[in-house]
């Protein structure tokens, strides 16, 4: 992994995620937007070897916290579930785009439910909107079909996906 490139990619994704540009593709008056960081979390968790996937998951969680309301909840939820996915992919390869989209949907629901539970420790007034979590996860999963080539190109640029599917990663 080229970590400087990875940091640049994550910061860029966080800035785009928090920027007004995302408002242009938001849906309904609830401003449902896809979550780019969630897409990246799933991509890196299934494309990197598990050691790198742990670091990537926590780093993406930290970026999600920076764009959110509090520091900590996404760091833990992305880290925990990204690590879990990195281990699950040893059993279920998640090769097909449909499977990856399903993984984004499930991970979206789980990470944001966990994050909204954890955020209560920090900001007791924060309210979780289950409908919004569900719709954001669906939207992100659908977006995966459109952005997968770009994300994979970015992934290769940062050195992820080299040991993808089949090649035996170097054990640490």
């Amino acid at each position, binding site marked *: 992994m080229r970590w400087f490139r990875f940091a640049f990619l994550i910061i860029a994704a966080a800035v785009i995620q*928090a*920027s*007004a540009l995302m408002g242009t593709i938001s849906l309904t*008056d609830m401003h449902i937007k896809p979550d780019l960081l969630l897409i990246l979390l799933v991509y890196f968790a299934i494309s990197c070897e598990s050691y790198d996937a*742990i670091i990537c998951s926590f780093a993406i969680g930290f970026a999600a916290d920076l764009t959110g309301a509090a520091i900590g909840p996404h760091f833990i939820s992305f880290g925990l579930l990204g690590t879990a996915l990195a281990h699950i992919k040893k059993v279920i390869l998640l090769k097909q785009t449909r499977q990856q989209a399903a993984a984004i949907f499930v991970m979206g629901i789980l990470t944001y439910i966990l994050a909204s539970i954890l955020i209560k420790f920090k900001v007791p007034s924060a309210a979780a909107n289950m409908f919004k979590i569900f719709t954001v996860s669906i939207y992100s999963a659908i977006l995966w079909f459109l952005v997968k080539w770009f994300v994979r190109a970015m992934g290769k640029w940062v050195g992820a996906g080299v040991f993808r599917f089949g090649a035996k990663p170097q054990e*640490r």
Partner: protein
Amino acid sequence: MARTRFKPSKLTLFIGLFLFGCVLLLLPQTLTSKLNFAFIDIFGFFLNMGSSAAYYHQPPSTSPDFVSRHEYNRLWVAYTNQQAELQEYKRQIEELGKVRLTEPDPLAGLVLAKVVNRKDNQFIINRGSNDGLKNGQYVLGDNAVIGVIEQASADISSVRLITSSTCKIPIRISAPQIGTYFNGTMQGDDKNGAIILNMPQKYKIKAGSNVYAAEKAGFLLSPRIIGRISRCVIGETNPVIWDITVETAYNLNNITDVAVIVINPAAGG
């Protein structure tokens, strides 16, 4: 002797990062929110790219008989605020006939700020505790109440908008037909409006009535317009209360400048 690079095992790495996350979670929000504000400060330019402020820069109408929608809204807000103040002065004059009231606080003022970033039902503004801002203060957008200060750091603050479900504020609903107000509590609907909670049907409320933020000691001296009732029907779950929806005076997405009501700015700064 060859130098060995420190490389923890996967388990050590995971546990270390997890514990670091727990520490971040347990640190006070006032401390960690500095990181959120720093992110907005550094990338403010990029975050505002594509922001829709065009609404405020529409060319003036060429017709002498009509004004733009924004101009109409601005005049309506000014008019309703004047009306509320007039009612308040009338009440004070009546009271003055009986007892001598204390003078209104001469140090009440407004702190003008720019919206530097906007998230879901939240604005980030470029003023902070150095300018006398503190949690709970009311924020105006073109003279209408649009939210309250949620967190204030030294030079940047976050504003929880009235459309957020976490924002509950005391309100008054005007009832001009009987010359009074009904008090209640308003909560955002996480969309573009708000709802009024637990308003009994014995109050004769109609769609179109104005909704004001109620006075609050130390935060708001006189009622300020929020919007108007767009829908008022019998409650679906509880038929003895109204199901009231409030439409904000402006589309909050188009607001670029705000003013924070600061009572006793000298004490706050």
